């Protein structure tokens, strides 16, 4: 097999991840709470956990892990939306957003670890 340049693997995965994020956040987002960002962050953390713990090849890690999952999930939108909630006087919602994104993503990685362990023995 011809080795692929890491930049193409990461970049192509990144393009796919960005488009999937745009699609999911347009479907899920609501006016009052940034559910779209929460959804992509938890889902992307789960998939990144799966490919990492399954011991995928370097190419798959670059394409799916660094590229697709890295771009699908986002920290900048998360921090902007959290600051925005504080500005709108919704401090409790902002704190909840910060905690739920963290616990949801960590739990998703934990579930991914359990799934890989169960499937691969």
């Amino acid at each position, binding site marked *: 097999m011809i080795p692929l340049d890491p*930049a193409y693997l990461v970049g192509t995965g990144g393009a796919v991840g960005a488009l999937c994020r745009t699609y999911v956040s347009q479907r899920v987002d609501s006016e009052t709470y940034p559910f779209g960002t929460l959804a992509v962050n938890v889902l992307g953390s789960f998939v990144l956990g799966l490919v990492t713990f399954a011991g995928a090849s370097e190419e798959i890690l670059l394409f799916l892990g660094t590229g697709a999952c890295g771009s699908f999930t986002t920290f900048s939108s998360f921090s902007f939306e959290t600051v925005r909630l504080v500005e709108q006087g919704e401090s409790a919602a902002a704190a909840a957003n910060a905690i739920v994104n963290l616990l949801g993503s960590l739990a998703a990685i934990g579930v991914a670890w359990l799934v890989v362990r169960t499937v691969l023995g």
Partner: protein
Amino acid sequence: MSGPHPLRTLESIVLIGIGGFAGSNLRYLVARMIPGPAGTLVVNVVGSFALGFVLYEAVYAGVLAERTRAVVATGFLSSLTTYSTFALQTTLLAEPVWMIANVLVTYTLGFAGVLAGRSLARRVDGGAGE
């Protein structure tokens, strides 16, 4: 229901894709230069600052075109920053105290980055108004 023209939709898809390609590669480059949670911290803080500037610039000045802003924010900056790698690296840290520190430092500097971007956007507006 009348959505945007199909060619405009196609154009947005291409631009977001290019932004995702460039943003993820810049993140990968930083990760190779600064491995581990420190590199992830750098892209997340820089990306939060830039996104804060780009989105608050819409509120205060409005120099950037709406579509430019959408492509830069959704395509490039959101792909430059990442939550999944941050979360995974946090779980892989050896000591609980480092895990808590990574979360606190990333959150604090990320929010501070957005606020710094907002201040810069306000100054740009002040300069344009004079």
